């Protein structure tokens, strides 16, 4: 699926400037980036579902998914602070610099799913990688059938991209359902786990693809529900993460079964995930 002729930064990172930093939810920030070298800025084209390797100078490098749409969207990454390198990233201020390699990975299908109904099911910060595909599909809304987003998080404070969701709720024909795990004062929306929304939204099963991303517990519950509704294993698509080091299929840290997440993935169908024989 990956386009071999596409421009990629393989070994030596290119320097990018942090233009703006936005606080998202607790421990998650969004960093808007642009390349120092304008030639690279022009050549660097992503596909939704791909990832980059991001160097924080003096701390190390980490793999991160890409939330921007490939078309007319500011380049950015949204990152939760979990370890040493992401911790260092969160210390950065606008004007600081980072290094970027990539983009790597196969990416979400786009041309292949034209004409179909599209369901997005996201849990917590699982919305980050899906955002790229959501925005891209919305930019071509007429070329798809029903477009549905089912999004759940622990509480209203943990809803990622709330400003986007508020816009999406207003878009005619974009069926957006948002739920939080427990009742909360001032919350008038859905309450409960996200897999419960699948029945509520009366999702289509014919000519339909579902993109699923979230923590393993949520993932398994959602898959079970989608399959019981009648979706086929080939039409459930997810993106996996691993502790990647090189991004180009050499270090083998991201090996799952016989595939490498960095070059064969990170996007897999549920049927593929099942045959890999490892935990997600």
């Amino acid at each position, binding site marked *: 699926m*990956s386009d*071999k002729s596409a421009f990629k930064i*393989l*070994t*030596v*990172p290119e*320097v990018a400037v942090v233009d703006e930093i936005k606080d998202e939810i607790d421990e998650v920030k969004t960093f808007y980036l642009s390349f*120092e070298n304008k030639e690279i800025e022009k050549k660097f084209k992503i596909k939704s579902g791909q990832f980059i390797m991001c*160097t924080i*100078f*003096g*701390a*190390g*490098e*980490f793999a991160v998914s890409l939330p921007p749409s490939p078309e007319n969207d500011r380049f950015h990454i949204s990152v939760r602070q*979990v*370890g*040493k*390198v*992401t911790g260092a990233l969160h210390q950065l201020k606008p*004007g*600081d*610099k980072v*290094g970027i390699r990539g983009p790597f990975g196969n990416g979400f299908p786009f041309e292949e799913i034209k004409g179909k109904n599209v369901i997005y099911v996201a849990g917590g910060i699982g919305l980050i990688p899906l955002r790229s595909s959501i925005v891209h599909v919305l930019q071509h809304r007429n070329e798809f059938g029903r477009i549905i987003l089912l999004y759940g998080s622990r509480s209203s404070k943990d809803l990622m991209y709330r400003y986007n969701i508020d816009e999406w709720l207003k878009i005619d024909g974009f069926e957006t359902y948002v739920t939080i795990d427990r009742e909360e004062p001032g919350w008038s929306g859905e309450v409960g786990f996200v897999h419960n929304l699948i029945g509520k939204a009366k999702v289509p099963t014919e000519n339909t693809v579902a993109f699923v991303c979230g923590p393993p517990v949520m993932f398994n519950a959602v898959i079970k529900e989608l399959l019981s509704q009648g979706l086929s294993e080939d039409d459930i698509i997810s993106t996996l*993460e*691993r*502790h990647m*080091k*090189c991004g*180009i*299929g*050499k*270090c*083998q*840290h991201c*090996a*799952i079964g*016989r595939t490498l997440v960095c*070059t064969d993935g990170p996007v897999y169908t549920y049927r593929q995930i099942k045959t890999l*024989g*490892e*935990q*997600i």
Partner: protein
Amino acid sequence: MFVLQKDQIEKLLLALKESYALYGPTLHEVSGQVLFDEIADIKSLNINAAIPYNPPKYTVFPQFERILSYQYNKSTKEAKIAMDNLQKPKALVGIRPCDLTGILCLDRFFMGQEFVDEVFVEHRKKMFIVANTCVTPFPQCFCVCTDSGPSAQEGYDVNLTDIGDVYLFETGSPKGEEMAKKLGLAKASAEQEGMKKKVVDESISKFEPVAKENKAWISRVMNRITTGFIPNEVWEYIGNQCLECGACSFVCPTCSCFNIEDVNTLDGKTNRLRTWDSCSFEGYTKMAGEHNPRKPVEDRRNKRFFCKLSYSQSKKYLRPGCVGCGRCARVCPGDIGLPNVVTYIRREITRQV
């Protein structure tokens, strides 16, 4: 084919030394081990020495290597990144066919897949290889089972075979041809050329019966590993014996997993190091936030054997990932070197039949 007189070996080494850093088997005085090491004094190269304790893998894929360095000035916000790992050309002299096969596997893995590894290319592009036909197999050797010895088939510039009083000098590349010309070597007679087969046959006859008589078992086990018809108990049994020391990966001529680490120096620079890693280490797949998709040791253990003997991995190497050098059997404290794993799986196959 040419003939190299035994006392001409030094001439060959001197000629190589003009343009290459020499690496070859040498006896390490302190430990008494044969190591594949850099040769400063050509007299210390011992082409007839036993199989080196370490494979020459590190000459193309060092255990620690700076792949780039950078400097970031926090006040001016200026970042300078340099790929400064330029390598001196190396000549590997007296490399055994198993180890040469290992390097060819690495070639195909690092340079023949979707992406070319630029760091590896830098090591590999200027290299002169003098292979040496193996006339003395060791108890752990089983290259006859993995089609990687005792005589090199490809990948060399020069291939030497000791046929008694002289070396046969086969050339495998224009660089090798040039060397033969430079040394003014005489052509080998038909009789001398015929000696090679005799030497190789004799070498094969010296292998342990377990290697000689079981050549088909490797392919049988490959079939089992690829199709996944190995009961989990077998992997558990193997996993229970694994001490997770990683020695098997480090002495393996084809193991090439690596880690990347950014290490800061006192003068404000950062070196990006690439270091050997092993899939048997628990932290190998651990992600930030402590989630580790692979936990039990047998789960990690079977990955290594999957990597050596499955079809999907062999597609990358264009051959099995094991070259039959026997080093893993020699270093493993848990006695689960590859030959033993093959034995356990065989036993399972026999039991099922």
